């Protein structure tokens, strides 16, 4: 294969993957539109004062959630990176768990800690202070920060891990005090992760539904996603649902575009949290501060998990564990998760191969052309991220309509669930695998080209060894996302297609809260085990000196 052919192949694969994703999402919209038979009433919606209020609230809570999560993630990432403590490995895995948690489980866990009769309120009441009033914007923000601050912190520690070893050595030798170290080494690295973290968290919070309703204290706290659900679920009004979904996507894109102009390209990734070797010891004060930040942040993040654990242990776990329904649901969940994660990974790698090829510096081109190609690549990143704000219920309903005539609906259901989950995990995979792939490409491109390595040989010998660890992390994360997902399943339930979250909600829905708590614990443990396994199993062997 020639180099030109390799380039063609990569661009074609990436293009095909993008086409599949956009076709999958766009096809759903088109089908729903066709059934509705009328144009989406965009103009009418725009002039509805109630909806304008909903839009305002949606953007307000998402912006505040994103800013708070990221603001909290900065000191946490720093403290995590500076401090070694036992259990750090496990803590970093747990940081990805909130994303994999069924939202209702997370919401109830937060209530256990922060609610009127929660632990914090009990402590306050014992000291004569008033109990907390969780419900309203504060509750929504606390929940969103719980779900997203750990994610943002991992994006940032990843950047700190990329600081060259020499910088830490130099800093130690120059005796940089903590403030100078922050200004000269840490902040410049962290700063790079902030646009990515803000935009990711923003998108995740825009579509918040259950959390906003449960903790919002009343229907005044309503997001567009709630309206979309209502439009499609209760009113079965596809044109309205589509108009609302388009508004949600458009508004998010606009906000992201603005932040892009202000803050730079939203590229950022995770790493495995390999401990960078640092030599600074900090001062007594700085160590105290870091310790305090760590203690507070870990209390904040781990306390809802502790609530889930304690609640779960109260359940009759033995009975649950031997229940054949649980075994079947776990297998179905794992199968769906595996399939979704694999599909997502294939899509992500195809897209990334193409975008790294587009970003690859070439000296021959004029800078204008270069800039256009970079812009194209960044636009691709944003577009991929926007997948997060496409309501799964719209996608599911659209494809259901499209395929009902040509295939068995019970057979379609698992396929649609897998496809929807795969597409929803795509932005995370791009974040996780993208940066290391780009770095590998920068390092090895010239060598690979000089050796005439192309196609799969190149993939296998050049890219794969460098990205296998992030691929493992991404794969586990995508699986966990899919394991905890109910959104796509709810629409397609069938007698033989029962997943773990479905089982959990089923029990919640018929007074069996204790069983549900046990299931939540089991689900959480499976996700954690997956993360640990994937990260351990695919970690690159340490190069020996």
């Amino acid at each position, binding site marked *: 294969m020639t180099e030109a052919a390799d380039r063609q192949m990569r661009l074609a694969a990436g293009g095909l993957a993008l086409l599949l994703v956009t076709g999958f999402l766009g096809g759903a919209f088109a089908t729903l539109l066709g059934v509705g038979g009328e144009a989406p009433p965009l103009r009418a919606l725009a002039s509805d004062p109630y909806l304008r209020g909903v839009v305002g609230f949606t953007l307000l809570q998402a912006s505040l959630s994103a800013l708070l999560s990221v603001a909290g993630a900065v000191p946490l990432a720093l403290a995590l990176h500076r401090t070694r403590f036992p259990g750090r490995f496990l803590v970093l895995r747990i940081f990805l768990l909130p994303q994999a948690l069924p939202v209702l489980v997370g919401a109830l866990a937060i209530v256990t800690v922060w609610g009127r009769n929660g632990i914090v309120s009990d402590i306050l009441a014992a000291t004569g202070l008033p109990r907390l009033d969780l419900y309203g914007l504060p509750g929504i923000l606390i929940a969103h920060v719980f779900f997203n601050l750990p994610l943002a912190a991992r994006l940032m520690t990843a950047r700190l891990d990329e600081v060259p070893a020499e910088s830490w050595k130099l800093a130690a030798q120059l005796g940089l005090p903590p403030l100078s170290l922050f200004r000269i080494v840490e902040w410049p690295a962290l700063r790079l992760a902030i646009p990515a973290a803000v935009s990711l968290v923003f998108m995740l919070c825009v579509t918040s539904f259950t959390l906003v309703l449960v903790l919002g204290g009343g229907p005044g706290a309503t997001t567009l996603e709630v309206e979309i659900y209502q439009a499609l679920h209760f009113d079965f009004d596809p044109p309205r649902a589509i108009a609302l979904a388009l508004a949600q996507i458009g508004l998010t894109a606009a906000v992201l575009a603005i932040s892009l102009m202000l803050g730079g390209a939203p590229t950022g990734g995770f790493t495995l949290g390999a401990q960078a070797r640092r030599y600074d010891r900090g001062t007594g004060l700085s160590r105290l501060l870091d310790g305090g930040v760590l203690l507070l942040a870990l209390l904040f993040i781990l306390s809802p998990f502790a609530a889930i654990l304690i609640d779960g242990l109260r359940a009759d776990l033995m009975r649950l564990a031997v229940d054949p329904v649980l075994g079947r649901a776990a297998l179905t969940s794992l199968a769906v998760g595996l399939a979704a994660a694999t599909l997502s990974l294939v899509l992500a790698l195809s897209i990334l191969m193409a975008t790294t090829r587009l970003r690859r510096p070439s000296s021959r081109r004029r800078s204008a052309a270069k800039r256009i190609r970079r812009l194209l690549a960044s636009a691709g990143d944003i577009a991929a991220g926007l997948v997060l704000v496409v309501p799964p219920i719209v996608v599911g309903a659209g494809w259901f309509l499209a395929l009902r005539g040509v295939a068995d609906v019970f057979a379609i259901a698992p396929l649609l669930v897998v496809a929807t989950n795969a597409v929803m995990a795509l932005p995370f995979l791009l974040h996780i695998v993208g940066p290391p792939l780009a770095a590998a490409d920068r390092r090895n491109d010239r060598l690979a080209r000089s050796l005439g390595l192309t196609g799969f040989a190149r993939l296998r010998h050049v890219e794969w060894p460098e990205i296998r660890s992030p691929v493992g992390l991404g794969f586990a994360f995508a699986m966990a996302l899919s394991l905890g997902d109910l959104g796509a399943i709810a629409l397609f339930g069938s007698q033989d297609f029962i997943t773990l979250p479905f089982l959990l909600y089923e029990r919640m829905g*018929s007074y069996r809260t204790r069983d549900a708590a046990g299931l939540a614990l089991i689900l959480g443990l499976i996700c954690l085990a997956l993360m640990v396994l994937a990260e351990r199993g695919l970690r690159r062997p340490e190069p020996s000196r």
Partner: protein
Amino acid sequence: MRIAPLVRFALAGAALALAGPATAAEGSKPVLTVYTYESFVPEWGPGPKIETAFEAECGCDLQFVGLEDGVAILNRLKLEGASTKADVVLGLTTDLVPEAKATGFFADSGVDLKPLTIPGGYADPVFVPYDYSYLAFVYDTETVKNPPRSLDDLVEGDPNEKIAIEDARTSTPGLGLLLWMKSVYGDEADEKWERLSRRILTVTPGWSEAYGLFTKGEVPIVLSYTTSPAYHMIEEKTERYQAAAFTEGHYLQIEVAGRLNSADHPALAQRFLQFMLTPQAQDVIPTTNWSLPAARTASSLPEAFSKLVKVETPLSIDPETVARNRRAWTQEWLTAVGK
């Protein structure tokens, strides 16, 4: 290079996931497919017992498909259209009947409704009620010493004693409360909602979230059903949770089943609907679906049911009126509560 085993594993997983539904067919017996809500299907729900009993006499294979709730069932029908596999739908509330009829998917039941013992009676050529329940506010006797005795009590009660309700836009009991308030207060409903909103801790998207908050002890009063305490008395042996009896009466929620035009086995579908009204089937309902039987049962109800709130005045609004006004009333509710 470990990608190959990874892919093989994933493909095997996908195959497994897809193989599940394919194993459904069982011999050459006719299959009767029933769409219902998800809590009907599990081993503790009515589904398995109804299935065993009906299959013993029908020579058929009864299959339940559990969906989120009544609204989801109807949506699923709309999505599937003529290609639906459902022969019977079980689990719509009467509020949904006009909308269900408007789809034109349903055939006359051909079922004799004489056995019905539903308060106020029920007559409809298409749908067959199989159980009913009354909305009620369930409270925790350990924290609520003076439970409200009327809707008025509830509305005017201590704002610091919080209640959790469900959203009228996204849930059946939420819409039910809206109708309850409407049927008691008429045009004054929005003012009463404003008063009530002082007591509302939060408005959840569905019953599960609200009831979860309640059993967690986060909120002492929750919108549920008069039959909810029966579950706690029978399954958990506790009388801690009780429903408050309201002097104005309680809103009646009737669950119905119907058969589809497109049913592959219309006669079998009719037979199933009729079966749901037999004492044998009605026996199953109270302690599995935690609702009240729509017709005579073979054996008397468990003792716990005699301790439940006896509703003297069932309240309801004609489904056609509900269908016409739902949007406007929901908007009114949003404005009153959303402040």
